[in-house]
Every structure is written in structure tokens, then in C-alpha cells.
């Protein structure tokens, strides 16, 4: 069994700065700048594409510089635990100076999971938020996850990872019920959609038509996916403040394959649909097209790392989405 002592990692991090400083100093005598605004713990499986994950983390650093602790679960095995430290640097000032963030990578076999919290906890930077991003990992279902989640000021999950959507939403719900600040990337995917829908009702004529019966339909290729449930639930919840009767449904039709949202009221039809890299909003036949890149982990995490507070819209939508999932299952 290999031993990974937090003190050893911290010492290596300190040495890393000396080395990086020397290298930077040789190049232009200006040294390097260490940047850090949070501790980011990323839990991933070894099967997770390391190159793609590395790129995502590197892309996040300029906007959310962090000490990143990347935990790779290697699967069944004895109590093997290993680590390496390195710096993630970029050159922002016309090649004059490097800005660097620390990265610690810990590989861990299932047999060593119990030791993981005792290694990770001392590595957290004091006085700064600690965000745990649990990617599609088995750890979520293991008892050891609890100790790691307990360290987090914010926990980022992704309901789309799990085959059973209802169970996935219930899991997110239970984390919130236990008092944690939780984000779900399935919900984050919807921000631009929700924003465009809201924009439609900045028009007072459209807003005035939100009366009587309102029908909401969300389609995701026929699946009651987490994002479809969230969207329908959020619309239903938002309309609660108005004297309207809302009927929300998830379309079971496999066509169209792309995600779409429809709202129909008396004299008003709104449809939002994705067409490649665009979001097309059609209001009573009048269309507007805007740029909407496919959501990747970088864009989603970038948004979530910028939010430090509880998200009441999300929590209300989640509660309704779970109910909607039950109704859809039946």
C-alpha cells in the first residue's frame, strides 16, 4: 500500500512554486503569480477521458483560479493511493508573466476510499470556498462520498449521469434536504433556455396573454430526461404566481429529436427549439435566432462556480420535477 500524506503534498506544492518561480524568473525576471479563489475537488473515474477533463479544468482556471484536487477512482483494488502535484499556468500579459494555479491529482482504488477524506481535507485552502464536483462516478453511491461531501461549501452533481432520472433527482433532493448547497448540471443546461423564455415575457403584450389555461410541453426526443422535467417543473412553478391553470407535460414523441419547449395560452404560442448551434424562439410565428453553443462541462461549471448562494428557483423546480417524474413514470 502506498502512503499519501497531506503534509507531503503540501511540501511538494511549496517546492512547485519555488521551481516555477525560478523558471519564470529565468525567462523574463518577473516571476510567476499564484492565483486562487477556491478549492475545487473533482471526482472522476479513471475511464473519464483525462485529456478532455484536463482541458475543462484548464479552461476554468482563468476565470475561477483554484487549487484543484482531481481524484481519479481506479476501480476495484487494494488500498492503493497515489498522488502527483503540478501547476496549471497561462500567460496572460503578452508573454510577459505567467499566472499559475495548483493542481493535485490523487488516484485511488476502491479499497482506499476510506482514506480519501483524510487526505483531501487538509489540502483545502483556508478561508476560501470548497466546491466538490462529482462527475459521473460510482462514488456518489458509496458511503465514503458522505465524508467528502461534508467538506463542501457547494456540491455539483449531474443528474444526466444516472440511468434512472427519478432516482437521480431524488438523490439531488436528498442532498438539499440535508442542508447542502447543491447544483445540478442538468439544471444549469437550461439557463439560456429559461432566459430566452423570460425575455419573451418582457414584452407586455405577451405577458398580458398569460391568463386562463396555459399548456406547457417540453420535449427531449421522447424521453422524460432530467432537463425536460426541470424545464416543465420550473415553468409550472413560475406560473404559480399568476391566476392561470397550468398543464405541464413531457412529450413522449421521439420527434423532434432536439430539445424543445412550448407554451400555449389564449392568443399566444411560444416555441423554443435548438437548431444546431442556435436557439430559435418563435412567438406567434415571429422568429428570432440567437447563438447557443452546445453546453459542455466547461460552460456549465463556469456558470456554477460563479454562484455562491442558494438557488431558490432550482430548489422549487427540483421539488416539482420529482413529482412530475413520478407522474410520468406512471
Amino acid at each position: 500500500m502506498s502512503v499519501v500524506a497531506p503534509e507531503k503534498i503540501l511540501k511538494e506544492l511549496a517546492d512547485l512554486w519555488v521551481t516555477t518561480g525560478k523558471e519564470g524568473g529565468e525567462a523574463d525576471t518577473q516571476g510567476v503569480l499564484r492565483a486562487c479563489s477556491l478549492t475545487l475537488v473533482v471526482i472522476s473515474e479513471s475511464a473519464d477521458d483525462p485529456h478532455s477533463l484536463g482541458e475543462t479544468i484548464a479552461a476554468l482556471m482563468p476565470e475561477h483560479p483554484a487549487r484543484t484536487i482531481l481524484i481519479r477512482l481506479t476501480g476495484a483494488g487494494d488500498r492503493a493511493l497515489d498522488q502527483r502535484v503540478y501547476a496549471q499556468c497561462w500567460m496572460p500579459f503578452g508573454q510577459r508573466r505567467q499566472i499559475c494555479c495548483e493542481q493535485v491529482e490523487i488516484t485511488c482504488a476502491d479499497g482506499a476510499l476510506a482514506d480519501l477524506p483524510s487526505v483531501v481535507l487538509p489540502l483545502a485552502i483556508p478561508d476560501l470556498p470548497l466546491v466538490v464536483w462529482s462527475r459521473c462516478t460510482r462514488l456518489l453511491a458509496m458511503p465514503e462520498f458522505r465524508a467528502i461531501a461534508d467538506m463542501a461549501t457547494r456540491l455539483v452533481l449531474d443528474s444526466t449521469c444516472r440511468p434512472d432520472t427519478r432516482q437521480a433527482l431524488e438523490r439531488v433532493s436528498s442532498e438539499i434536504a440535508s442542508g447542502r448547497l447543491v447544483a445540478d448540471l442538468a439544471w444549469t443546461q437550461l439557463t439560456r433556455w429559461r432566459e430566452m423564455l423570460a425575455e419573451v415575457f418582457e414584452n407586455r403584450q405577451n405577458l398580458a396573454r398569460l391568463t386562463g389555461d396555459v399548456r406547457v410541453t417540453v420535449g427531449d426526443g421522447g424521453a422524460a430526461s432530467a432537463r425536460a422535467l426541470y424545464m416543465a417543473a420550473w415553468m409550472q412553478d413560475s406560473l404559480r404566481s399568476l391566476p392561470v391553470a397550468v398543464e405541464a407535460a413531457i412529450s413522449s414523441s421521439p420527434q423532434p429529436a432536439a430539445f424543445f419547449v412550448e407554451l400555449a395560452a389564449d392568443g399566444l404560442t411560444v416555441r423554443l427549439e435548438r437548431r444546431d448551434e442556435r436557439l430559435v424562439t418563435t412567438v406567434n410565428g415571429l422568429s428570432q435566432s440567437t447563438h447557443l453553443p452546445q453546453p459542455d462541462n466547461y460552460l456549465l461549471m463556469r456558470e456554477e462556480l460563479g454562484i455562491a448562494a442558494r438557488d431558490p428557483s432550482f430548489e422549487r423546480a427540483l421539488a416539482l420535477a420529482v413529482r412530475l417524474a413520478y407522474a410520468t413514470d406512471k
Partner: protein
Amino acid sequence: MPTENPFQDALRFERRVPESVVVIFGANGDLTKRKLLPALYRLAYDRRLGAGFAVVGTSRTAMSDDQFREKMQEAVQQFSEDTKFDDEVWRAFSQGLFYVAGDIGDPALYRQLAAKLSEIEQSRHTGGNALFYLSTQPSQYARVAQGIGSAGMGKGKGWRRLVVEKPFGHDMASARELSDRLHDVFEEADVYRIDHYLGKETVQNILAFRFGNGIFEPLWNRRYINHVQITAAESIGVEGRGAYYQEAGALADMIQNHLLQVMATIAMEPSASFRAPSVRDERSKLLRSIKPMKPEEILQYAVPGQYGPARIGGEDVPGFRQEKGVNPDSQTDTYAAVTFFVENWRWAGVPFYVRTGKRLPKRVTEIAIQFNGAPLAIFNADEAQAVPNLLILRIQPEEGISLKFLSKRPGAGMNLRPVSMDFNYGSSFGERSPSAYETLLLDAIIGDPTLYTRQDMVEASWAVVEPIQNAWRETKFDFPNYAAGSWGPDAADAMLARRCHVWRRP
């Protein structure tokens, strides 16, 4: 009937954008093609505009809606610097572009525009909200405003706002006259005087830097700050605008508006809130606290300059008087450096050196705040004293902030060296910064005038600039007094040297 949008989410969404139509006067001009349409297209691309958003362009040139759309497409493709042109986004956006041809002196034009607005209100549900953007000659502003008023477009079912570009008059009297004419039709609260400098991210960031952090504000006063230098240098000459520039000059073209606004942002008191009236009140108060110069002080505290011919990078560059359309005996200032003092407790005695010029060595705009030295030099006195702490706020070309301080050089002995702690806007935040016009157009549509100039600010600026302008007009200077490609006249260096200061070389 619902009055509040039930779908808003303040935590995650950008600001609300109401339905509206933007009417551009001078729609065939350079500003529309280079700045306004690319900015509006970018806002559409970024999902910032509603589905019914519309633009009505007007100018004398006869054009159909389709020809206008074609022309604007070319402009957007040519001048959108960091925005991908997306055919589908353009197709939807361009459906909201309309054109009305006519002479701004002809009342028929305004009647046609009123009919067009009413038609658009029906077809695109713009709610009667209209923003009139005057991208015409400044001499036409009052006439256009009157035309809008006469056709009944100054008021409507929704809000009506007017955006005007600088210059806001060429002296105090003309500024007041213009303002009075605009106020015949629009309330002051609906007049948006655009100063694109205030729309730049770093100028806005000055407010965030000063009032969002606790550590700098205690140092932000005469006790710790030695002096402030504000530089807006351009490497180009008048570029074919000689005839216009000859009438304006650097002092009126840059200092009266942009740089005094930047100075006000640097030196203003903290506002009670970030609401527009509070921020603008403080900025205005600061401008009114700038000490107007007595006639005998002007030649000592203000230095004009005019560039002469030179050879730069193997190329012969003409002097200002050799530029096309310029009088060979012109007394116009292509460079101006002024020492301002602010008469309040915070800034009493602290010089604010402001300079701007054409044909300087590089294009750069920055604010350098020089702090007082350590009260006691316990290290090598020469070394420590020679490099003061400097806080540099860079506005262009690379927006960012640097703090220079002394650090011990590693090794035996106590040798100090200056180091720089840098923050770069573009690279520290992965996302693209919106252009100043994107920010300001969106603010005007939303109804947030925080970054716009109010009439009392315009008048306060003229109150300090006009005496200098008058004194310079009455003096015959020995121009040219600096070579193109240099950092300005020697007299500007001498102005600082009297207080043992030197201009920074950005």
C-alpha cells in the same frame, strides 16, 4: 392582468431587456456601420434582445428596407471584430431592420417615421418604446429633436429616449443652448449623452475596484496619493478629419468630455448606492469641485501642443499643418496637458495631470496613481525612493490593473527591486468583454443612465475647460512644438518638473 414577468431569475439571468425599436438618424454614416449595427447584432447574437426588437435607419440616401439590410450586413461582417457572423442569427435580426429615407430638415420625414413606428409597434409588439439615436452632425441635434417633437414622437405609449453623441456644445453657452432645445421635447431623464469611454469595461471596473474592495479606499486620498496621471495617447494623426479637428482641438475633443469623466470616476466620493442618480450625483459633484483656473495660472497649468512632421519607422509623417484640410497657420492643439486640482478635503493639493494627443508614440489610455513613498527609507535610500508605488489602471489597448511595489531581491543583502502584480481583463476572465457601444446601447434600452453624462456634468466640465480654451485662443503659440512620434512638447514635461514629477512612459 400580470404586471411582473413570472419567469425572471435574478440569480442567473442577465438584465431584463424591454421590447423596443431603435431609430438611428444618420444610418448611412460611419458610426452606424462601424459601431452601432455591429453592437446591436452582437447583442442579438448573445440573446440580449427580444424577438420583436427593431431598428429603423434614416438618412438622405434613398434605399429600400432590403438595400439597407444588405448594407448593414456588409457592415456587420466587416466591422464585428470578435463576433462570428451567423447567417441564421442575421436573417432573424435583419427582419427587424427598416429604413426611411428623408432630409432631417423636412417635416415629412418625421411624419413617415411616426407612421413606421406605429406600424412596427403593431407588427413587432414593441410596446411603443423607442430610442432615438442621433448619429448626425452635432449641429443637427436640435433640429432633429424638434422634428421628433413636432411629429408627436417625443411621447408615446411606452418610453421615449434620445441618445446624443459628443460634442455637447463647443463652449458653455452652446452646451446650454443645445440642452434647452433638447429639453423642449425630452425630459433630462430621457436624454442620454453618450461618452463611449464610460462604457469601457475598465472604466466601469474603476468603480468595482474602488467601492467593491475594502483595502484601497482608505488609501484613496491626499494623505497617501502623491499625484494622478491620466493619459490618452493616440499614435495616429487626424486621418482625413483635419477640417473637423481644426475646429475642435485636443482639449475640447478629449479632455472636456472623456478624460474629465474618467477623472471624476477616479476621484468621486463613494455613492450611497449603485443606482444611476447616486453615481451621477457624485460624479457631477466631483466635476464641480475641480478648481477653475485664473487667467494668470492657465499658461502655467495647461500646455497645448501641435505635432510637426517627422520620420517614423522609415516613413515620412506630415505635421498637422500639412494635413489635408488644415490651415497652414493653424493654432489648433493636437496635444493638451492640464494640471487640475480638486477642491475638497480628500484631494486638496493633489495634482491630477491629464494629457492627450495625436501622433504620440503609441495608442494607450491609462490612469497612473502614484502613492507617496515610505515615510522613512530604512533600506538603500536611493533605490527605494526612486521607485514609488504605482497603481495603473489600463483602459486600452489591454484593459487591466497593475500594482507596482518593491520586493526584496532573493539572496544575501537587502536589495530591493520593483515587481508588478497584474490583472488583465481579457485573459483573467475567459469571456469576451462587451464593446463600449454594446454596454451603452443596452443601458439606454434598459433605461440605466449610470454611464451617461448629465447636463450638469457637461456644464461643470465646460466651466473648467472654457477658460483654458479662451486663453489659448488669445495666445499665439509657436507651433509645431513636438515632433510626430514623440511624447509631446517639452513644456508639458516642465509643467510636471515644477513639482518634481515626471510623466510616465506608458
